[in-house]
């Protein structure tokens, strides 16, 4: 028995169970909290593969950022204790169809992609390399997307201030 297999099985069970409950729960606050556990599981997978930076980013951005944002939004509109009940059968069917299509597509892609798993070594990437690649101007470096992203964030901030200050 491989230790990675045990860890993977544990994480996978946590993720699948939380994902199922997150979707089926009728209380939006519980769904958000369960979504948090799915995101933790994903971070755990990254750590298992020694992608420490990606794992830490996953926790900071999703657990510490997005989920906090969700909870704040739910609290601000004051709908935290409202039960989400599906009233129309058409919506129910549409959601079902979308989910099934997405699942079929994902399974098809997973089965038909040749993963070079024999070339994979779980050694991770040095932090220095990552920093150089993010800030480098050579080929396969990411300074332009990085800057574009910061312009996007600036635009978001300006937009948020515009909406908040509207008289």
């Amino acid at each position, binding site marked *: 028995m491989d230790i990675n297999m045990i860890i993977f099985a544990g994480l996978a069970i946590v993720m699948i169970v939380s994902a199922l409950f997150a979707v089926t729960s009728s209380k939006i606050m519980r769904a958000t909290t369960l979504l948090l556990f799915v995101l933790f599981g994903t971070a755990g997978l990254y750590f298992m593969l020694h992608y420490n930076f990606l794992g830490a980013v996953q926790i900071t951005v999703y657990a510490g950022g997005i989920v*906090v944002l969700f909870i704040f939004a739910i609290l601000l509109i004051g709908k935290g*204790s409202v039960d989400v009940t599906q009233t129309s059968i058409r919506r129910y069917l549409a959601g079902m169809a979308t989910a099934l299509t997405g699942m079929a597509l994902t399974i098809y892609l997973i089965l038909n992609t040749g993963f070079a798993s024999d070339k994979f070594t779980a050694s991770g990437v040095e932090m220095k390399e990552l920093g150089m690649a993010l800030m480098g101007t050579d080929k396969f470096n990411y300074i332009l997307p990085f800057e574009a992203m910061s312009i996007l964030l600036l635009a978001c901030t300006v937009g948020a201030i515009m909406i908040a200050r509207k008289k």
Partner: protein
Amino acid sequence: MLDFTTITTAIDRFLHSALPDWAATLTECALVAVCVIAAYLVFAIVMIFMERKVCAAFQCRLGPTRVGFWGVLQVFADVFKMLIKEIIEIKDSDRILYNLAPFLVIMSSLITFSCLPFAEGLQVLDFNIGVFFIMAASSFGILGILLAGWSSSNKFSMIGAMRSGGQMISYELSMGLCILTLVVLSGTMQISEIVETQTRGWFIIRGHIPAIIAFIIYIIAGNAETNRAPFDLPEAESELTAGFHTEYSGMGFGLFYVAEFMNMFIISGIASTLFLGGWAPLYIPGLEGFNEAMCWIPGIVWFLGKTFFVIWLMMWIRWTFPRMRIDQVLVLEWKYLVPIGLLNLLIMTICVVMGWTF
């Protein structure tokens, strides 16, 4: 100096010789977890007792004196009192989230705690992204507070949780900026390497002015992150009874209480690692005999000494300054600490590029 890796490697070898690989790794995980939780509780007990005595000293009182000699058993009496309290059920509350919330807070605090370098080789998590992982792990403790406030179905808890959310998310920013300043100086994010470089002089001395500014901002932000006075608005007792943990009784409250104290320990531990050299002994260039003598003091003594010094600083602040208003808290962060922190980062970068550091 005593290197703890010899002990841990010996245990690792022994387990791997006695058990198959997967079982040995699982046993090690369990052993490490037990050790971390035990250390966590021991430090929590020490901290709570210290808080009572230091608070008493600042207010010219004696503090606890009745339970045990010099009041040393006071904390155990408190814990016993908490354990025999009735666990109440709140009407209209979300039971699952209500019970889950303290554990989220404790989990975040425990993961961060296990990143601290207590001595050479005595560190559980040592990633190459080190300090960034600490930031990541401490960032989701806020979720536990938000959920606790909401699931209590009490408007005072709710207000406390919202205040806490706003405050902690804001002050995380200047804390991150201070850590970044020190990362610029050290050139690495791995905690063991950061401490290793400081055996040739602590960063607060080597980084001189920008490092001292960063240290001051870090202590202010650290006080805000732990929700302690002058930033204790989330649990302002005169307005909100007890804030987000009003509706918790017994050990539910106990967990929040312990997490608050241990977050202070963690903040101080990180401060002593980044600024005061962690387990690295005092080093003065030129005085070889003195440096040799300092090396004879074990690393864990250095680390705990520095950490408790920073804790004492934070307690001093806590029992000296009056509480701020929520708008003052946010103005302090967004209009003063963040710009100063950004400027300080720039100054530090210039210093490092120009070689103006020691």
